[in-house]
């Protein structure tokens, strides 16, 4: 939580003789406010004002105290009074600024400083504050003008460059053509003027100039600056060599680019960017047909603009030699060969012939870095270069370096790491893909042995470090997941859970284990269990946005409403607090002249505020609150606090950003099983559709609540007309846009919902279960559509609209018989389908538990909505409401009409009976929800496997051994317990260190209870709503 901003203390040294008492008391008020004691602050301020009624600052502090005591109106009144006096002393202005910030009126801060600046036009402090006020609002034009005024008053360089930067920002937000033709040239001229007059002082000013030139594509000009006298100033942020290298490349000055890259590589052999620069430039120079003869004279090699493959090879060899000479091993020069190979290959040439044997290049790297965990990560991107025929050679090549016999356990940590790298590479090459499930199980067993053996290499392991043999366990989990994907045997998922829970006991900081556990528990619909692990990840701040997707939606889909609500609250707090805070840092960038960061900050703020996850969480949080309210009055109260904009869709769907970190899950699967851009798009699209539908539901509920509290339930002019939905244009009265009548809003939203629903269905988004480990869980969209939730919403909302209109005609109508009965049919159909095809069948397998809960959540939500609508209709027809609105010209007749009352009661009885049926069905799930029945049918240790068939060979492991009981007893401590617990699971041995079954069962029971509770509340709600 962000602390309240500390109030600026009055400067003590400045106290005037006659004012010193006042100053002291002022300080006292500040202290009260700071310590949160607004009451005392108010009293103190009152006392001071009695003696000095014109002490403006005290008045403002009084206003602040009032504000914090919830008396907003009085606060505004007092502030108005002070602002009419146009204060110019810093103390008062600062205090007012705090008030305006707390009331979220940033434009008032501008107005205030603007007025002050008019009164005291040369006051540097006031103008600076005015500038910053404009920065907060993002008003670049005003920024520019204020900065120039400031510069005129106090000709200091930073002020001038604030103006320049403000011009640049105008370009950022304007049309590209205008930016290029007008705005940026203006900014350039402004700086040029300063250069001509020899006024450039600071590094930041040069940075800004370069930025302006770059934006206009004036690379040569930028290079001139960098190479000229101004370049001397560039010492810290982006330095001259870096810039030069970049510009030479853009300008296709290959020779210069090669030479500068070489020059800096000589000092820094591992500079990957320069290696790539060098290779790109040399390859390009070669294509232009330049060639120079070969040489082996070193100083020539360091300065020659290489233009042929042999020359590049000479240089890469030189890099290697230089590295050996310096006695240190870095990855860059090794990877340079692979990168070189890739470039030649991509140009359609025979890289094996020209550069060297690809396998040899891999082996060369592996020899030095095979024992580091970065090895497979570095090599991954080059693996596609290895042809299918050569893959065997590659594995053989690295396997020789590891130097283990088939099935031999590594004798050193070093070898174990190499072994791990080899396995990961072979998995990435697809060697595990073609194994049968039995073979995968055997392999899993093998890795267990390697893991167990590897424990000895962890000497005094720190709980904060990963264990060096952890990758074996992660691979085991991945293999078991593979088997589960193939066989859909849920016992394999239980194996994964058990394995990872145990792994965490040994290596408590390994977040890969945790992330995978969260995923597996969520796949199984165990929201609580998933959440318990998720909490140990300590996801916070930015991570709430980038990682929230792995858990938030899933946890709500299992009916864990309170966990979901808490997660949503924490997430929303992050977004609101940080959006406010980050604007302060935007003004800091000007203050410190960090011009390079300004666009980045603005862009980032936009990215956060338009985050998809943010929007989803906001809408879901509100819907939970509304749909779960226990009485109609509570529902109205909840909605009234939400400021739902029912009239207009304020979302800019096209600009929604996807901030999910899709690389969080580590995976060694072959490329076709990695998270692809298609998958990212697919899952994003599904979430967007879901969000749009949910947003419309929220807006509709907003309109419904407004309708309940509206004086006249029907728009005055069109009492007897139907609303024409087609013209969305807002009419203006006296230049003001009248806010729409809630009934019109509702009808508009209904038609929007109808259209959106139609287009979502037409899009035909399908859930494709992905084999990628990092794939997000199934979007909630699919079951939402499947349950016919939206169909029901449309009928229920239309029913409300129809009832309102009827009650204004003669009270007679067919709303209930027409629309109401449709709603009942839909709801009954959904509930029956849920019971028959989900509750009664999907309980039998753990795999479908998530579906089970998600369906339960969705149908219960449908009942919630139905109950809520009953409450609303009741409210509209209620006689007491009539009395209250008697001032209105028209008298409502609805409640007078016995047919209507009867129809409503009948409607509600139908709803009740459906709810009761659902309640019964959910209750029936209770005895079947436990997981005891799902113990593994097949033990993890495949003792029998491989007896009849020839043993399968796996790279880096060799022939898969059949494992006997003796091997199990040889395993010690934790892992033995793990294995034994697998073995004995069928016998319900109590020896689990982690009782996964119990965790699942508890989670299921808890979810069911939560869902049933919500349903029960709604049944009571229905009871109490009867007329």
């Amino acid at each position: 939580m962000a602390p309240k901003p500390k109030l600026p203390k009055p400067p003590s040294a400045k106290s005037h003789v006659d004012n010193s008492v006042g100053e002291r008391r002022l300080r006292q008020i500040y202290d009260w406010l700071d310590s949160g004691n607004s009451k005392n602050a108010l009293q103190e301020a009152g006392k001071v004002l009695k003696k000095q009624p014109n002490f403006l600052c005290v008045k403002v502090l009084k206003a602040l105290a009032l504000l914090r005591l919830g008396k907003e109106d009085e606060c505004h009144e007092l502030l108005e009074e002070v602002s009419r006096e146009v204060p110019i002393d810093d103390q008062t202005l600062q205090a007012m600024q705090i008030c305006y910030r707390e009331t979220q009126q940033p434009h008032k801060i501008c107005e205030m400083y603007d007025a002050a600046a008019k009164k005291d036009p040369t006051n540097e402090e006031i103008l600076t504050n005015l500038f910053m006020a404009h920065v907060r609002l993002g008003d670049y034009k005003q920024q520019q003008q204020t900065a120039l005024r400031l510069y005129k008053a106090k000709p200091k360089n930073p002020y001038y460059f604030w103006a320049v930067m403000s011009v640049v920002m105008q370009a950022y937000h304007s049309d590209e053509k205008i930016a290029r033709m007008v705005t940026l040239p203006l900014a350039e001229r402004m700086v040029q003027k300063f250069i001509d007059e020899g006024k450039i002082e600071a590094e930041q000013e040069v940075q800004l100039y370069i930025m302006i030139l770059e934006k206009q594509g004036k690379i040569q000009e930028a290079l001139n600056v960098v190479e000229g006298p101004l370049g001397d100033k560039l010492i810290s942020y982006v330095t001259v060599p870096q810039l030069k290298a970049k510009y030479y490349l853009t300008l296709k000055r290959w020779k210069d680019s090669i030479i500068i890259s070489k020059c800096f590589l000589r000092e820094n052999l591992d500079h990957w960017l320069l290696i790539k620069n060098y290779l790109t430039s040399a390859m390009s120079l070669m294509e232009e047909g330049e060639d120079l003869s070969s040489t082996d004279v070193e100083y020539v090699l360091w300065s020659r603009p290489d233009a042929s493959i042999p020359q590049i090879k000479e240089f890469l060899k030189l890099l290697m030699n230089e590295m050996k000479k310096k006695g240190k091993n870095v990855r860059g020069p090794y990877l340079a060969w692979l990168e070189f190979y890739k470039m030649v290959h991509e140009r359609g040439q025979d890289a094996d012939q020209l550069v060297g044997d690809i396998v040899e290049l891999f082996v060369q790297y592996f020899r030095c870095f095979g024992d580091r965990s970065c090895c497979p990560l570095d090599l991954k991107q080059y693996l596609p270069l290895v042809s299918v025929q050569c893959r065997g050679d590659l594995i053989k090549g690295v396997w020789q370096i590891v130097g283990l016999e088939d099935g031999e356990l590594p004798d050193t940590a070093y070898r174990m790491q190499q072994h791990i790298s080899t396995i990961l590479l072979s998995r990435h090459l697809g060697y595990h893909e073609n194994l049968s499930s039995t073979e995968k199980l055997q392999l899993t067993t093998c890795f267990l042995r390697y893991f167990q053996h590897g424990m000895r290499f962890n000497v005094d392991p720190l709980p904060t470090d990963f264990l060096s043999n952890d990758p074996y366990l992660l691979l085991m989990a991945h293999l078991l997941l593979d088997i589960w994907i193939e066989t859909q045997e849920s016992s394999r998922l239980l194996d994964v859970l058990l394995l990872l829970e145990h792994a965490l006991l040994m290596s408590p900081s390994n977040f890969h284990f945790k992330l995978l556990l969260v995923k597996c528990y969520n796949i199984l619909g165990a929201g609580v269990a998933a959440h318990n692990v998720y909490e140990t990840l300590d996801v916070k701040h930015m991570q709430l946005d980038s990682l929230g997707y792995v858990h938030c939606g899933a946890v709500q889909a299992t009916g864990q409403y309170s966990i979901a609500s808490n997660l949503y609250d924490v997430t929303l707090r992050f977004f609101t607090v940080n959006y406010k805070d980050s604007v302060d840092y935007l003004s800091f960038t000007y203050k410190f002249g960090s011009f390079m960061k300004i666009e980045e900050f603005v862009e980032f703020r936009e990215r956060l505020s338009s985050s998809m996850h943010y929007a989803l969480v906001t809408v879901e949080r509100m819907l939970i609150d509304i749909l779960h309210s226990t009485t109609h009055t509570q529902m109205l109260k909840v909605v009234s606090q939400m400021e739902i904009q029912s009239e207009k869709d304020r979302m800019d769907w096209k600009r929604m950003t996807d901030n999910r970190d899709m690389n969080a899950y580590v995976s060694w699967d072959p490329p076709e099983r990695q998270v692809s851009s298609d998958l990212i798009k697919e899952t994003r699209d599904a979430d967007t559709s879901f969000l749009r539908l949910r947003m419309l539901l929220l807006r509709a509920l907003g309109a419904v609540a407004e309708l309940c509290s509206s004086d006249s339930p029907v728009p005055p002019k069109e009492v007897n007309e139907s609303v024409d939905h087609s013209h969305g244009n807002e009419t203006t009265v006296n230049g003001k846009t009248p806010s729409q009548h809630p009934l019109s809003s509702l009808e508009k939203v209904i038609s929007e919902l109808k259209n959106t629903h139609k287009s979502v269905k037409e899009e035909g988004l399908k859930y494709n279960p992905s084999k990628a480990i990092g794939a997000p869980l199934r979007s909630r969209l699919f079951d939402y559509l499947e349950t016919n939730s939206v169909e029901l919403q449309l009928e229920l909302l239309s029913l409300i609209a129809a009832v309102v209109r009827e009650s204004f005609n003669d009270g007679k109508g067919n709303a209930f018989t027409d629309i109401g009965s449709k709603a009942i049919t839909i709801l009954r159909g959904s509930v029956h389908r849920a019971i028959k095809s989900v509750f009664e069948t999907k309980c039998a397998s753990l795999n479908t538990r998530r579906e089970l809960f998600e369906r339960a959540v969705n149908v219960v939500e449908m009942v919630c909505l139905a109950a809520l609508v009953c409450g609303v209709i009741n409210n509209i027809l209620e006689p007491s409401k009539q009395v209250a609105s008697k001032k209105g010209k028209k008298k409502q007749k609805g409640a007078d009409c016995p047919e209507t009352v009867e129809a409503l009661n009948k409607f509600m009885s139908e709803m009740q009976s459906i709810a009761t049926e659902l309640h019964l069905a959910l209750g029936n799930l209770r005895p079947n929800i436990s997981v005891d029945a799902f113990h593994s049918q097949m033990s993890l240790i495949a003792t029998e496997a491989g007896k009849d068939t020839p043993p399968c060979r796996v790279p880096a492991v060799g022939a898969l051994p059949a494992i006997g009981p003796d091997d199990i007893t040889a395993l010690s401590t934790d892992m033995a317990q793990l294995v034994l617990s697998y073995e004995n699971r069928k016998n319900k041995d109590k020896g689990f260190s982690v009782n996964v079954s119990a965790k699942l069962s508890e989670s299921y029971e808890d979810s069911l209870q939560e869902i049933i509770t919500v349903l029960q509340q709604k049944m009571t709600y229905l009871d109490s709503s009867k007329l």
Partner: protein
Amino acid sequence: MTTLRPFTCMDLLKFNNVNLDPLTETFGLAFYMQYLAHWPEHFQVAESPSGEIMGYIMGKAEGLGENWHGHVTALTVSPDYRRLGMAATLMSWLEETSEKKQAYFVDLFVRVSNKVAIQMYKQLGYIIYRTVLEYYSGDPDEDAYDMRKACSRDVNRQSVIPLEHPVRPEDVD
């Protein structure tokens, strides 16, 4: 030195493989932005050839007169990229930047229990300048070592004469 580049806000959205590490604190957005706004050159990220974040360093320049120094606020390397000298590379960037800013020394705080880190800083030439009592809050609170390395401007190496007595956190400026 591997390729370092300035850390940007967008990196905050994808640094999970570094920050999920239990010894790496994830701060509030404001904290990162303060550093990015004020000392952008002290905040660098090391990127792997495949574009992943290998680690980053976050620091600042502060102090008056002979106390003008570079400070390491956070230094972290992803578990996947350890044992490659990444931390040394990042540290040397900050030291160079501090040299350019004509600092007298570079300093940092480290948990007294974090033996691995202390050992590494010693190898990089840092000395334990003083102990700060109960600097890290927790259960129980933990002391910090204030470790220092002199820059070339501190010709007489005045800044790295260790203090004999520990200090309280409120005495650290």
